[in-house]
C-alpha cells in the first residue's frame, strides 16, 4: 500500500468532526459521536499523564516486550546486521533519543494531550514529544527524523496512529537485540481506554529487515494525582560512561 493510499491520510472531514467533538468535551458536554468517513467514531478520552513503569508492566529487556511468541522474523539482511552489531555503537550512549517501537515500552511516564488538529504524545524518557497530526496533512517528501512523521485518526473508541519517515537507526528495533530499522519502518499504534487503563497495540513493519510485521500490546495506568513529567536532560557523559566496562567486540 502506498502511503497516500493509507486510511490514516487525508481525513479533513474526520478531523473537523473530531475537533467538534473535542470542543464539546472541553465545554463539559457528553462525548459526541462524529462521522469519520464510513464509520461513526466517538473521540476517546486519552488525556492525562500515564505511568508505564515497573508497577504497570514488566520492565523492558531482550525478551520484553518481544517474547519468543512475538519476536519478529528477520530477513537475511537483518540477521547479518544483528550478527555484526557492536553494543558500543548504540546511539543511546550519546543521548540519541529512543524511538518507536522502543520508546512506547520504556518504563517511564507519558502524557497525552488531545487537541482538535493533533494529539501530542510527550515522553519523560529522553524528553521526547511526538505530534500526531489529525488534519490530513501528508508527510514531507524528504524529511526523515528520529521520531518520524505521525498521522492519526479516531476509529471507534480508539486512536490510530501511523508513523513513517524514520531515519535509519542501528538500534531502531529496540534497546537490547541489536536489530536496526530503516527508512521503510512503519509503526502503527492503536490506543484505547480499558476502564482506568490506557492500552496500546503496536505493529511494526520494515521490509528492509523483517520478513513479516511484529506486534506487541501494552498498557499504562494513571499517574499519581498531580504528577508532572520530570525533565530527563540526558547527560552525555554519564550515558557513555559504562561503555568502557565492556570487552570491545572490535579493535
Amino acid at each position, binding site marked *: 500500500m502506498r502511503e497516500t493510499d493509507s486510511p490514516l491520510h487525508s481525513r479533513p472531514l474526520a478531523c473537523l468532526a473530531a475537533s467538534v467533538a473535542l470542543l464539546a468535551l472541553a465545554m463539559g458536554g457528553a462525548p459526541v459521536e462524529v462521522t469519520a468517513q464510513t464509520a461513526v467514531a466517538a473521540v476517546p478520552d486519552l488525556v492525562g499523564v500515564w505511568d508505564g*513503569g*515497573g508497577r504497570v508492566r514488566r*520492565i*523492558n*529487556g*531482550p525478551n520484553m516486550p518481544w517474547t519468543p511468541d512475538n519476536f519478529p522474523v528477520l530477513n537475511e539482511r537483518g540477521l547479518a546486521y544483528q550478527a555484526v552489531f557492536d*553494543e558500543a555503537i*548504540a546511539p*543511546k*550512549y550519546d*543521548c540519541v533519543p*529512543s524511538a518507536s517501537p522502543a520508546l512506547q515500552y*520504556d*518504563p*517511564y511516564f507519558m502524557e497525552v494531550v488531545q487537541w482538535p488538529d493533533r494529539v501530542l504524545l510527550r515522553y*519523560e*524518557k529522553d524528553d521526547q514529544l511526538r505530534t500526531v497530526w489529525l488534519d490530513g496533512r501528508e508527510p514531507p517528501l524528504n524529511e526523515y527524523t528520529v521520531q518520524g512523521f505521525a498521522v492519526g485518526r479516531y476509529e471507534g473508541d480508539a486512536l490510530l496512529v501511523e508513523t513513517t519517515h524514520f531515519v535509519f537507526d542501528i538500534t531502531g528495533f529496540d*534497546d*537490547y537485540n541489536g536489530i536496526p530499522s530503516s527508512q521503510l519502518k512503519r509503526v502503527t499504534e492503536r490506543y484505547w481506554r480499558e476502564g482506568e487503563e490506557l492500552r496500546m497495540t503496536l505493529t511494526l513493519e520494515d521490509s528492509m529487515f523483517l520478513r513479516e510485521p511484529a506486534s506487541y500490546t501494552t498498557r499504562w495506568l494513571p499517574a*499519581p494525582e498531580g504528577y508532572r513529567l*520530570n525533565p*530527563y*536532560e*540526558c*547527560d552525555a557523559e*554519564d*550515558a557513555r*560512561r*559504562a*561503555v*568502557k*566496562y*565492556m*570487552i*570491545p567486540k572490535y579493535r
Partner: protein
Amino acid sequence: MKAMLWISSLAAVVALGFVLTSPPAEAHHSSTPFYDDTQDVEVIGTVSRFNFRNPHSFIYIEAENEDGQMVEWEVELGAAVSMSRSGWTRETIQTGDPIRAVGNPSRAAGTFGMCCARLTQPDGSEIQLVRFESDEVPLQLVAFVASLAGGS
C-alpha cells in the same frame, strides 16, 4: 507549640530504610555486556561524588584495593527520574558518606565499575531514605500524629 511543630514535621517525612538494588537495565541498556553477573565484589569506602542524572546515576566510592592503593569505584544506578519516584534526591547520598556496595564488577580489565549493587552502611545496616509527605506518604498519618501533639 515548638514540640508540636517538631512532631508534626517528623510526621511529614517518613524515613524508609533501604538496601538498594538498582540494576541499570531499566530502560537504557542491559547490564550483561558491561558487568559480570556471575560475580560479586564488595567495596567499603567513602563517597567521593554522587551524580544524580539521566540516563544513569553514579555513585563514586573511594576505597582501598587488595594492594592497599586507593581506587575510585563507579557504581552505576538507575535513571534519576525513576529514582526520584522512590524518594531519592541528589542529596540522598553525600560526599564523605561512608558506604558499602556489593554488586557485579565491570568486565574490562583495569576498570572499577559496578552495577546492580546493594548499598548499605559499612556495617551492613540500612541507609535511611527520606520520603516527603507529598511523595505518596499518607496524609492521614501526618494528621494523626499532629492531633496527638495538639492534645498533649
